[in-house]
């Protein structure tokens, strides 16, 4: 099944009368269960691509089919709904709420899914255990190491059983040991649960985890290889 399909997607940012074409006519398909790594120099449009895939942003033109549905015409509420139910996003800066505990951070998507407090807690705890942080449930983010914070963020991305997981330079702020631990988690997820995984990275050894590598350059796909 085709999970993600871009048809001539263009993203343009305007600064006054100056235009910047960040994504230049991208057409690509990603199947369910694929493990894709995205590489390319800084400013080549990787994050913009990820944001559109993750329904945080919409294309300027072109079509984006998510599980066969054209979401490029969706409104803000419908996009929020997809982000909540179908997409798990992991960021380079972790993006945890500093005043919420690890458990509460993991619960966050479930709050917006309208799930009861009791069920939220159970699910969040279960997911935290899965990333190996059960004993840190009531700890605040600043008391955790970078690797641990990223694992909380992954638990948050997973808690509502998404169809795809998107990670934009998830190891960019981590040492190599933590990076490997994080990548092992993504690998396990992909292999055990068949979750479609797309990871942006600069590092070739991280990229080698993927079974498909896509290279961006100046808003275009330079190469697309499967290993």
């Amino acid at each position, binding site marked *: 099944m085709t999970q993600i399909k871009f048809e001539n997607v263009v993203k343009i940012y305007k600064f006054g009368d100056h235009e910047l074409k960040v994504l230049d006519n991208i057409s690509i398909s990603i199947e369910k269960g694929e493990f894709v790594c995205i590489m390319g120099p800084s400013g080549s449009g990787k994050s913009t691509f990820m944001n559109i895939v993750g329904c945080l942003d919409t294309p300027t033109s072109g079509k984006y089919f998510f599980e066969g549905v054209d979401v490029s015409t969706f409104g803000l509420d419908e996009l929020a*709904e997809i982000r909540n139910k179908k997409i798990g996003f992991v*960021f380079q800066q972790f993006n945890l709420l500093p*005043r919420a505990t690890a458990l509460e951070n993991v619960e*966050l998507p479930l*709050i*917006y899914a309208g799930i009861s407090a009791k069920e939220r807690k159970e699910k969040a705890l279960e997911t935290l255990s899965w990333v190996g942080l059960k004993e840190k449930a009531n700890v605040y983010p600043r008391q955790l190491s970078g690797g641990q914070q990223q694992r909380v963020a992954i638990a948050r991305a997973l808690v509502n059983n998404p169809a795809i997981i998107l990670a934009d330079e998830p190891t960019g702020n981590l040492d190599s040991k933590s990076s490997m631990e994080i990548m092992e988690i993504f690998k396990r997820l992909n292999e055990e649960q068949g979750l479609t995984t797309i990871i942006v990275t600069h590092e070739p050894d991280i990229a080698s985890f993927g079974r498909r590598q896509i290279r961006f350059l100046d808003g275009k796909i330079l190469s697309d290889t499967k290993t």
Partner: protein
Amino acid sequence: MIAISSIINIALRSLIANAMRSFLAILGIIIGVGAVVTMVAIGTGASEKISNQISSIGSNLILILPGATTQGGIRMGHGTIQTLTMADSEAIARECSAVVAVAPVISGTAQVVFGNQNWSTAVMGTTPEMVTVREWELISGRFITEQDVRSGTKVAVIGQTVAEKLFGDLDPVGKLIRIKKIPFEVIGVLDKKGQTLTGQDQDDIIYVPITTSQRTLFGNILPGRVRLIYAKAASLEAIPTATEQIKTLLRQRHRIGPNQEDDFTVMDLTQMLKAAEESTRTMSILLGAIASVSLIVGGIGIMNIMLVSVTERTREIGIRMAVGAKPGDIRLQFLIEAVFLTTIGGIFGLLLGIGTSLIVSSIMQWPVSISPIAAIIAFGFSAFVGIFFGFYPAYKASILNPIEALRYE
């Protein structure tokens, strides 16, 4: 759809996390609501006191005093000239259709003695109609009768204050007191009326038959003359007619020419008090309105704080949106925060207002009345201020672009 309880929880937590700022934000609301409650309490208290006055003096009361109100522009003391007579009083009762009862008075101050107690009080000679005119009940005994007036018996009906001063716990009815050394039998005790607006004790009084007072107590008053006349109009609406009828009748009886001034004054007490009541009510509305301005200023304070809060928490908003918060969820969260702030401010303001009102009433001896309705209005208004002034910041938060919000440092 996100559960309201979760949103309330989120809102509460962020308010607690910024406790000091939250407090400063609601200070304006506290002062605003406090001011409204206090002002309305003071105003309502004053107008309630006046309404009590109206009913305690006796409704639809008209006073007729000897002497003109002004003479050549100079106000003359009433009662210095004895122009009113018993016959005038009887004529008013007989001929003025809008008047239902008339009671003439011959009065003065006198020393009153019972046993070894003595007391100086106002002694008023009057007729049986007095109880009707002043709507005054007796708590024991009886009032002066026609018979008493006709034969000039030495009987007295005493007010509560006189009863307390002379008799303490004793039952005064049947006892003998001496007024200006002349023995009088106490035949009745009047119910308590309290103070007048000017602080005069209405219960510090003794009524005796008008004939007796003229003959034995206040001989300086010419026979047949009276100090003043009380008249009671048939209704509030009949007061102007009654006043006109009395004036016409007295001018005729006193043979006052068309270009001459009245030698008497007709005072409409009810009307005066009504006017006073009206003006205090207007005053209290005005004070409340002025105080409401401070509530609006408080609301602007809330808006300011909420705008700062939205800016500071841009990243948090981005995170929430990234995991699936809809614009409406974000809007509701900030709106509830604002309403929470103002409602808490409203509660504290209410307490402040009640406290201030009580202090004002005890220190300044000013009557206050904290009406539940005013409290509810002030409270509801503060919640409304929260919604009104919280809406714009909440709206701003809800239209943030998730990507830009996430990138915000």
